[in-house]
């Protein structure tokens, strides 16, 4: 199957000399939700902007659905819907006029039924005759999504779609993304909310200083980089880890009331049974225990720090 997006050796150096992208290679399959993570200034928006035709690449090749974004820009761009990070809207226009404009701009004939379905899906139908300037920030964000969906794109870019919106709207947006994916739309999501990527994405790409430092299935990342820890809350604080336990990957908490044991959850033997047995032998009692798996956020922070 033709990939939704294929990027080969893509670079971008701005006139200021800033090297925003360094030889990016990336393939995104049709129908997947791809989460692009990275700190501010990492190159996320530049990468999206080049794919969408807003920024000219310095070198490399990008194709969308097999169409080169430069040589076959019409076919490539017609497949894409973009929800930008900024709340950029035609403030004096009505919601209906602006989505109708977007559909026409992308070369699609008028289809009021489709526009109505999009607006209803985004709970904007009642606001169709309202001027955008009268809407709340969250509604403006939804108008941008409606504009991006007006021409029935095969690929949807969501650049920080839930930045500054309340929890309810964020959950609503996630629901919409899932429904779109169910209809076969490929979704590329950039976000600062790692919880969002963890919740939504099938695959994650981490970009830092213009380089893609990691592209993996979310599950693989969690498995590969995510350590699991067992925390034992002690009956009595310890001054130090007993010498008899020095061979184990154990850490004493700062308040000396807990022992933290890191283990590989996929190993044949986690060593937990042996640890508990040795604690009993040493007379070290514990009143509670729980396990914790690294979140995507912790993995992301570690990755960025390492690079």
């Amino acid at each position, binding site marked *: 199957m033709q990939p939704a997006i294929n990027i080969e050796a893509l670079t971008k150096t*701005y*006139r200021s000399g800033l090297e925003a992208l360094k030889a990016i290679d990336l393939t995104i399959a049709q129908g997947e939700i791809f989460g692009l993570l990275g700190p501010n200034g990492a190159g996320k928006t530049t990468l999206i902007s080049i794919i*969408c*035709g*807003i*920024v*000219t690449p310095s070198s490399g090749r990008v194709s969308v659905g097999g169409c080169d974004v430069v040589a076959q*820009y*019409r*076919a*490539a*761009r*017609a497949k*894409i819907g*973009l929800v*930008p990070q*900024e709340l*950029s*809207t*035609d*403030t*004096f*226009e009505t919601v209906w*006029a602006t989505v*109708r*404009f*977007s*559909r*026409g*701009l*992308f*070369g*699609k*004939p008028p289809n009021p039924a489709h526009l109505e379905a999009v607006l209803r899906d985004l709970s904007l139908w009642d606001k169709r005759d309202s001027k955008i300037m009268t809407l709340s920030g969250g509604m403006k964000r939804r108008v941008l999504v409606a*504009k991006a969906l007006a021409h029935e794109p095969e690929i949807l870019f969501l650049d920080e779609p839930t930045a500054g919106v309340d929890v309810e709207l964020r959950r609503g947006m996630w629901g919409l993304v899932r429904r779109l994916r169910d209809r076969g739309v490929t979704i590329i999501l950039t976000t600062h909310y790692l919880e969002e990527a963890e919740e939504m994405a099938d695959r994650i790409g981490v970009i830092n200083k213009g380089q893609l430092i990691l592209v993996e299935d979310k599950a693989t990342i969690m498995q590969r980089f995510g350590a699991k820890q067992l925390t034992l809350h002690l009956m009595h604080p310890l001054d130090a880890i007993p010498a008899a336990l020095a061979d184990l990957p154990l850490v004493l908490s700062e308040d000396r009331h807990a022992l933290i044991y890191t283990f590989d959850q996929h190993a044949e033997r986690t060593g937990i049974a042996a640890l508990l047995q040795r604690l009993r032998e040493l007379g070290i009692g514990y009143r509670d225990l729980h396990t914790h798996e690294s979140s995507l956020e912790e993995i992301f922070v570690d990755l960025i720090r390492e690079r």
Partner: protein
Amino acid sequence: MNWHAIRQIYRFEMSRTFRTVTQSIASPVLSTSLYFVVFGSAIGSRVGAIDGISYGAFIIPGLVMMSLLSESISNAAFGIYMPKWSGTIFELLSAPVSAFEVVAGYVGAAATKSVMLGLLILATARLFVDYQIAHPVMMVCFLALTALSFSLFGFMIGLWADDFQKLQLIPLMVIAPLTFLGGAFYSIKMLPPLWQQISLFNPVMYLISGFRWSFFDVSDVNIVLSFSAIVATMLLCLTLIWLIFKTGWKLKN
């Protein structure tokens, strides 16, 4: 050709005009009408005829041209500057539209508004001054071509401008003086020989002269020169806009 896109851009721009009808239409018609009242009816009756044409009638083509130039530039410049200013330009840049289609939408709407305005001013002038149009077809041709050429020029200004002040800079500091000194209120034959020669370097003079010819069959310069000046202006603007889109100057980083 993405006809849907051209239609939507055109429609969007025209709806902006009708939303701001006082500023876009009523205001320039009123201010130009004041010229007709003052120079046509009041002072004009005491000024002698030029080339056998009453002064009130003589200044009509120049005044229409003055409004046409400034409104064409303003309309087109504002049309493309607003998406840049508000950030909605991202949608235009990411849409499957060619430079030609974008220009056709924005410039087509700006030129339409200017032609509408020119015709309204002509109709208003009829209330104050009696005039005839010797070559009506050519008059419409000059009106449309000038509106188109200067809308293209305004579109370039809108692409170039990065603040509201720059939008007004060229219309006020360059176009207005060229129009006043291009024979809007006089025939350049009335100037001393040296100034007549200098006026030949003023491109607006050719436009006014040609437009006046279409009304009264008299002109300061050959009609072919006037027509060539308009076509040359249009081709120059089209070439520059094509280059801007090709290089992404002021549009894409």
